[in-house]
């Protein structure tokens, strides 16, 4: 880039840069979300999130993702052992295969939702995760969420 003549210019730019830099884990989150997403996947958008609530003595927060074909709502519940439980719900309800991707080397977790669209992942570590909802049939796109911090 063009040289910044002197210390004053450098100081000005350094002070500006200190204000509101991107989160240090932004690149990592983007790369994690992109890692396994295939080209045909339908992207679910963060629709709503509630702050952590104490629920029957547990800390929990709820996040909703909207895709064109389906809505995914998850409640992340803190466990006493520093792991979390993810209670999920698909709408419209369908007994679909739901995958929870975790950073390598952890294997992805795979469960099947019940007929009411409910699914559970238990004993999940804190950190980055991404949900993939597999389609009921070939020809329908997979739904993926952005990566989220559990």
């Amino acid at each position, binding site marked *: 880039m063009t040289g910044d003549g002197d210390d004053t210019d450098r100081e000005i730019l350094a002070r500006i840069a200190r*204000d*509101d830099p991107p989160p240090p884990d*932004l690149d990592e989150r983007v*790369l994690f979300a992109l890692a396994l997403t295939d080209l045909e996947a339908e992207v679910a*958008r963060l629709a709503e*999130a509630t702050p952590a609530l104490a629920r029957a003595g547990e800390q929990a927060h709820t996040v909703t993702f909207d895709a064109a074909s389906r809505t995914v709502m998850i409640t992340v519940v803190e466990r006493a052992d520093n792991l979390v439980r993810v209670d999920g719900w698909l709408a419209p309800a369908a007994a679909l295969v739901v995958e929870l991707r975790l950073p390598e080397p952890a294997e992805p977790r795979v469960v099947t939702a019940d007929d009411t669209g409910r699914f559970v992942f238990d004993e999940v570590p804190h950190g980055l995760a991404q949900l993939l909802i597999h389609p009921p049939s070939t020809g329908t796109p997979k739904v993926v969420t952005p990566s989220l911090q559990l």
Partner: protein
Amino acid sequence: MSPADAVDADARLGELLERARDGDRESLRELVRVLDPVLWRVARGQGLAAEDAADVVQTSWLELLRRLHEIRTPRAVTAWLITTTRREAWHRRQRARRDVPDGGAAVATAVDPGPAPGERLIADERDRVLWTHFERLSERCRDLLRIVAQVERPDYTVIAAMFGLPHGSIGPTRSRCLAKLRAMLLADPAWGTP
């Protein structure tokens, strides 16, 4: 930056894009590293809370992946990502205003929500003086200085796409904006001498 450098920068982005399309993780990583700070500024510039901005940046990348086969040139990818981020951010803000009384700032994650948009990190008196004068600059100058300050090696191709300006005008605009801010600061006794 000379026109020849501009061609080089375009070629470099193009090469990264080509390799990322072929599945090279390292090239994708580099592409994300170059473009994320710009997309972050675009999202924050739309008035999103930090967590929402981070999410919108991710969503734009996910959308890009679906369109990668349709978008051929590096300049088009940059422009496409910036436009998508701006549009996603706008939608997010509209939805937050409609659904959540506090504007969606209450997103619960482990990530530090960071300062609200418009809030400044004021560490000392010189910061206070700097931001006072900074606010007197034109919006274009403010946006441009924030992005060139934050990006280690600013890529003028990317920045030109962000502002919708010809590539060749980024360098001179940047110098003019910085000179203006510098003159105001040096004329202010509260800024003092370094």
